[in-house]
């Protein structure tokens, strides 16, 4: 049994809570367990889940990235704009540029945080503002339509009846759980978060590892953006507004602590699922989208408070 991250019991309780939610909603609404709803639910989860998985690693390393939403908006705008040019570049190239957008933002974030020793929260807050602003500038605050086969396929296509976004999410989960829990890289991430000084003295290259994480975070956000683009067929600067809160809530709910060194992919998956099921279930029950913010806020506060009190009790013992 791993001695870092969470004892299985906590992640188990999350999944039990998830089961409870699923049970409640399937009783209160007949549509909840319909194949259509389940697919829709899982697809929505995949959209933000991809970014949440990567954010887990960043939080474990004692960092933070609030720029997810901004990168999503910017990516949709960049891709849609490039596509709507006269004689556009080939789609695969445009998509690569889209991913590159996230990578560049991630690189700048990473550079400010590692080379300039800037605070991650404010840096990524600034990045959020800048990317959002750039999205408005490039699109001139307009929505840009994009009907295109590839993006349509990515977002709406299926392989063996499973929507591709879900497949991407599952792949992300598999890749990153191997990366975090089984690889040397993952071990060094936990080490950096638990005790950066010891990690440095053990010869771990802290700056380059952190840089990689922030770049990955940017790319993950871009992937989410491309999925969103395909789903909505439009690139607009407002895309991704509020996603950062959703993603952070999911990760913290899953047990990762801002103080670093704690958290698991499974926990984040549980967090993402709980949030997704909660939102989906409430929406079906007639609760409007904007009201979900209340639950999000409460969930975040309650989760963090619970973990905080729990840790304090453990230390006191």
């Amino acid at each position, binding site marked *: 049994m791993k001695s870092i991250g969470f004892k299985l019991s906590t992640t188990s309780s999350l999944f039990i809570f998830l089961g409870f939610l699923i049970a409640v909603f399937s009783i209160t609404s007949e549509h909840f367990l319909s194949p259509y709803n389940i697919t829709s639910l899982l697809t929505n989860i995949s959209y933000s889940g991809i970014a949440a998985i990567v954010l887990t690693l960043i939080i474990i390393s004692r960092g933070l990235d609030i720029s997810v939403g901004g990168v999503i908006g910017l990516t949709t705008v960049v891709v849609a704009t490039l596509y709507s040019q006269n004689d556009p570049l080939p789609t695969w190239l445009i998509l690569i540029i889209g991913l590159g957008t996230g990578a560049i933002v991630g690189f700048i974030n990473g550079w*400010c945080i590692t080379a*300039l*020793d*800037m*605070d991650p*929260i*404010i*840096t990524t*807050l*600034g*990045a*959020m*503002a*800048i*990317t*959002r*602003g*750039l999205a*408005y*500038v490039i699109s*001139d*605050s307009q929505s840009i339509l994009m009907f295109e086969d590839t993006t349509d396929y990515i977002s709406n296509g299926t392989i063996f009846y499973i929507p591709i976004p879900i497949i991407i999410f599952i792949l992300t989960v598999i890749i990153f759980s191997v990366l975090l829990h089984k690889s040397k890289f993952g071990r060094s991430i936990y080490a950096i978060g638990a005790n950066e000084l010891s990690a440095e003295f053990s010869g771990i290259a802290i700056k380059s590892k952190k840089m990689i994480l922030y770049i990955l975070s940017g790319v993950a956000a871009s992937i989410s953006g491309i999925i969103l683009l395909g789903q909505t067929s439009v690139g607009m600067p407002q895309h991704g507004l509020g996603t950062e*809160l959703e993603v*952070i*809530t999911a990760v*913290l709910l899953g047990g990762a602590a*801002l103080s670093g060194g704690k958290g698991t992919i499974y926990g984040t998956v549980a967090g993402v699922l709980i949030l997704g099921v909660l939102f989906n279930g409430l929406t079906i029950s007639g609760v*409007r989208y*904007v*009201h*979900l*913010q*209340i*639950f*999000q*806020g*409460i969930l*975040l*506060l309650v989760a*963090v*408070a619970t973990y*905080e*009190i729990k840790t*304090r009790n453990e230390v006191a013992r």
Partner: protein
Amino acid sequence: MKAWLKSLIYSDDIVGALAIFLFVLVLFFSLMTPHFLSMNNFYSIIGNIPAMAILCLGLTYVVLVGDLDLSLGSILGITAILAVFFFKVMGFPLWLNLLSCVFIGGLFGALNGIIVTKIGINSIITTLGTMALIRGLTYWIAMDVEAMQVGRITDPAFLNFGRYYFPEGSRLIPITLVYIVILYGLSYLFLSHTSFGRKIYAVGSNEATARLAGINVKRVKLVCYIIAGALSAFGGLVLVAQLGLGEAYTGQNMILEVVTAVVLGGVLLTGGKGSLAGVIIAVLILGVIRNGMVHLEQVTDISFYWREVAKGVILLLAIGLYSVRKSFNAKRLRTRQ
């Protein structure tokens, strides 16, 4: 450490630098665009500022004590719809409306303060949570509570709260300017010249030392959060009166600009340092940029959305400079062991 570097970090000369920057900006926009430098435009700029300025004042209290409060925009939002509700449905007179709103704002501030001080959750996560919570509450009340009526207020008595001019009928001194002067003035007195105000600075400067000196750190922080909430509510009321409108989305995207203005204004994010003069000039700078960019767009092809980018860049630069200075200090602090 070089003397000039030390003074760069600790001095208040930033106010002077900001004032110069403001002047340069005004000069720039006046030269580049035809209508910028006009009385009309001046009032236009001033008109857009009050709610922002009041929120910035509120945030300053929290930042001075070493924390961050991201929920102020949401507090403003819930106040906006409550103000409309109190007026239209409950028929409150203005003074009662004002009192109730400010009280509720203070209550939300207290919520933030209690979670941060008693439960001990990081202020950023806490206020991120309450930001969502309160905004969600706002939408819920606005849309689902039967009795609620949001939207327009046309009663001149109410609107005068935000649109009145001294002397009556003229276009000389807007009442909002008076609010800003009074609130900032009182805050200045409070923060710089009262015992409690100096305790706020002490806690922000070095929390442990402040505690050793017998200062009740929890209480000081709680008060700051309450003031921030109350001020945000006041700002909400002013905004509703100005716009004649109170909707669930009011104030939704303000917080970033508020943080930028406070940071730009020289208030140290780690706490214990900052002057109100800097904050108000920073607010003016951002207002001038916003206004100027609109004019600039009419004359050139530059999209005025660059201002959004500019805001983010300013924030990053301000923090970046501070961090560079900070690490520069750390390198110098070597001791023989």
